């Protein structure tokens, strides 16, 4: 995939870090402010997609990145189910909120909810990015 013009690449260099950090912030503060794992994961995926669109990628590079993104997506899904099964191990209930609740409005509060948000954020971000890579890496083979 080819990259874009110098203006786009310069703006991307400046902005991409802020977009990425904002996505992480939305994920980590999901239990306190609007947002959460899904919205933050999409923003993180958007940062990666912006990088691919602006700078392009070498031939065959999409395939390697797609495999890596698939691994991350599976890790996120397993993490989410692992948190659910941990509740089953601790007290016998699927998705039990077994961690201490902490003080409300603190970053370390709400038991398992922040960890679920992190797992969903990894899963959604890597999943959407791998969908984009699969679409970008399609070879248009025309046979006649």
């Amino acid at each position, binding site marked *: 995939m080819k990259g874009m013009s110098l203006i786009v690449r310069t703006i991307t260099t400046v902005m991409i870090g802020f977009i990425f950090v904002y996505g992480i912030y939305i994920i980590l503060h999901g239990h306190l402010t609007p947002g959460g794992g899904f919205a933050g994961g999409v923003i993180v995926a958007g940062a990666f997609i912006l990088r691919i669109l602006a700078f392009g990628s070498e031939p065959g590079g999409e395939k390697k990145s797609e495999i890596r993104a698939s691994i991350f997506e599976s890790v996120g899904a397993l993490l989410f189910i692992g948190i659910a099964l941990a509740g089953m191990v601790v007290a016998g209930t699927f*998705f039990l909120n077994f961690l201490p609740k902490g003080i409300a409005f603190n970053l370390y509060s709400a038991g398992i909810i922040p960890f679920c948000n992190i797992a969903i954020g990894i*899963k959604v971000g890597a999943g959407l990015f791998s969908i984009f890579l699969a679409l*970008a890496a399609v070879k248009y*083979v025309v046979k006649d």
Partner: protein
Amino acid sequence: MIELYLFLVFMIVAAIIATEIKDLLAAVISLGAVGFSVAIMFILVQAPDLAIVQIVVEVLTIVIFVAVIFRTTHIDETIGKKLAGSHIFSIVTFSFFALLFIIAIINALHEIPAFGNATMRVASEYIRLGLPGAGGANLVADVILDFRALDTLGEATVLFTSVIGVAALIRSVGRTK
């Protein structure tokens, strides 16, 4: 309340433009107008969580659409052509069933409570128990990740399945024939 109706009319007009215009880039921009109107309506009815998700998903969708259009073609050649006979038959059939559906919907609408006055039998319990029960300050996170976490697991499974489906459909291996 009146601004919701204004946005609704705007969305209907933009959706009709998106299906009828010949330039695909303009159609994608009309589609974006529909999506961002939905986001503004979510903000107007005080649902910032949904508004954030709607905005980021809409941006991502438009970016993918524009990337595809720049790599393929701008012009939709099917618009403006004369309809074939079979098309007219399917349009008539569709209109008939749409009319039936609308009559059923109008009858069903008398049963549901008015806008803004939901009965909230279960939801009032969620609101009462949200902060003491789950501990999260954001009530939406409490509901989707504590009270109804099993639903969220199903939703995550849907996304996982769709990713697997996309990867299986358009992988390059096995597509040589």
